[in-house]
């Protein structure tokens, strides 16, 4: 079933629904992708929760996937935008899951609008989320080296083999997704990550939180994810041994099992 196209701030926004047919009073789950990605990284969990009867909203952030640009270069602006998108979708409250940059958007959304967030899942997270100068500079020049850096560092060193998804070369998928980004989008995303100011906003988050950390994550080391969890009042951590940053590709079943534990159904 086709996703939904809504208007937010006068721009078209695409929202994937996992092929669901939810009841009008169904609980909602929102998925927010990472830098340079789009909603398709959530394909499997989106389809799972849609089958459970939840209303799924896997958004394409502005400038990503099928949503019109320009992109934001600030996490706070993305979080405000997410609230407006959920208004347009008539979703008052939801469980919110974010990966990488999307985890920061979810984190900020939950801390600034805690009444709208029923549960929070932070995958591959870090607060702050510093980005190295070589990656930022290459992305600024729209150079393919930025894609190579992000894609290589997003996968564990063992990802030469054994994808759980039959026949899928996950490094190839990551590269193609990043290549689909319009010029400037990836740099805007990385700038947003690099300038994110966590401060003590976590104290505002009252809902149950799940942090999923990959022990071989080179982009947001597991230690950073544990620090995020420790600063929150009600956080649980799932550590994935041998898993890198691209955990939705590397460990789709374990990630879904963890999400099932936190998303109200």
């Amino acid at each position, binding site marked *: 079933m086709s996703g939904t196209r809504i208007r937010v701030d006068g721009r078209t926004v695409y929202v994937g629904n996992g092929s669901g047919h939810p009841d009008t009073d169904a609980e909602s789950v929102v998925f927010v992708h990472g830098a340079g990605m789009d909603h398709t990284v959530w394909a499997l969990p989106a389809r*799972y929760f849609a*089958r459970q009867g939840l209303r799924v909203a896997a958004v394409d952030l502005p400038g990503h996937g099928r949503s019109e640009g320009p992109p934001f270069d600030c996490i706070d602006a993305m979080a405000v935008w997410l609230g407006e998108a959920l208004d347009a979708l008539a979703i008052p409250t939801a469980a919110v899951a974010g990966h990488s940059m999307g985890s920061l958007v979810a984190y900020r959304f939950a801390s600034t609008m805690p009444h709208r967030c029923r549960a929070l899942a932070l995958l591959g997270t870090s607060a702050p989320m510093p980005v190295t100068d070589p990656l930022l500079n290459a992305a600024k020049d729209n150079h393919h080296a930025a894609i*190579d850096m992000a894609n290589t560092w997003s996968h564990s060193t063992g990802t030469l083999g054994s994808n759980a998804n039959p*026949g*899928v070369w996950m490094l190839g998928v990551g590269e193609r*997704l990043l290549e689909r980004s319009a010029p400037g989008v990836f740099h805007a995303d990385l700038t947003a990550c690099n300038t994110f100011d966590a401060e003590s906003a976590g104290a505002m988050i009252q809902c149950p939180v799940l942090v999923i950390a990959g022990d071989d994550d080179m982009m947001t080391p597991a230690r950073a994810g544990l620090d995020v969890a420790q600063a929150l009042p009600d956080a649980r951590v799932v550590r994935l041994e041998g898993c890198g940053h691209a955990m939705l590709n590397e460990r*789709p079943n374990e990630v879904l099992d963890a999400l099932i534990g936190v998303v109200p159904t």
Partner: protein
Amino acid sequence: MADDEHRGPRPTGFDTLALHAGQRPDAATGARATPIYQSASFVFPDSDFAVGLFNIERAGHVYSRLSNPTNAVLEERISALEHGVAAIAVASGQAAMHLAVSTICSAGDHIVASRSLYGGTHNLLQYTLPRFGIETTFVDPRSPAAFEAAIRDNTRLVFGEILGNPGLEVLDVPTVAAVAHDADLPLLVDSTFATPYLCKPIDLGADLVFHSATKFLSGHGIVIGGLVIDGGTFDWEASGKFPTLTEPYEGFHDLVFAEEFGPQAFIVRARREGLRDFGACMSPTTAFHVLQGLETLPIRMDKHVANTREVVAFLEAHEAVESVSYPELPSHPDHDLSARLLPKGAGAVFSFEIKGGRDAGRTFIEDLSIFSHLANVGDAKSLVIHPASTTHHRMDAEALAAAGIGEGLVRLSIGLEDPDDLIGDLSRALRRATRAPR
């Protein structure tokens, strides 16, 4: 910062990918080699997980027609080697071609194809697919303008072989891909003769690639198999011409593949429809044999090419040989293109015309002792065939001429033997063939 100052991580090398991509030591047993999972089905942990596998919510295996752990290693490995996003292993090269076509073409659609094709592919396009409403226009593979001119409103695919069969026309992939993309169409390339070691069509602009894995990929003439690789590069939605990928599919609960799976749209539909419904799956034992071949592909292809160069040089200088067609020769029309697209070598299959026509050709083939007379290429052993009487026997004289096939044309597939022994075998047979009464 200057553009050329950016440095990404060094990518994993081809030889390493050929050995490791897609596989880790078996978690249960520690087996270093890829186990052959000779099982039709796989046990579900619970009912909800089972539904999740069927509904593409979970990763894993259900039934070996749809996927199998041994095949998955092969599929992942060839995807890595071809620089694609995903692949499907199927029963033969013909099944691979059929899966690619049937995933995006329907009755009423049209294909533009090179006219220099493997005979089986020609049969599929010329005779069989029209029965199902899919027509093909065949064009000169050396003329991108001919590809462009043949494109119609209902064209859905542009297709060619990286090295044409049997004339070894080199497909100008970057130019033909640009022609296809200008018309919002994908380019499919049969890269069987090159293998990803010699050429990666996706890096040159192709969107889909297929192989007969029977040939150099497995490399020992012991299995029949095919592989389809999705480059993940084509924008099916922007094209607007591919409803199988961009509109709800009733056969899978109104799934819109391009929307939910982005760069994997083609390969997910191919697995969830084509493999499911047509069922031309590869056996896991075959996948194991192809994997064994891939592990030595780089060193085998270097030896295949080196031997071929020696044999080509011998034949070109031989008085009983009318002409030799190999893209690395300055006399070949695609010499420069071959050097650009196939810098490591133009493969190990080539053809030559023996003086004396059909009778001399027949005598020559029958007098060879190391070369085997059979219908295959890409074996570790050297092979020979007479296309006009075998692989292309269904083509009439006019069609043969159009495909550049002379009646005395002999095709060789050079193996891994000592090159001096191959040359000795050819020398003896040529001598007898040219002495024989005609």
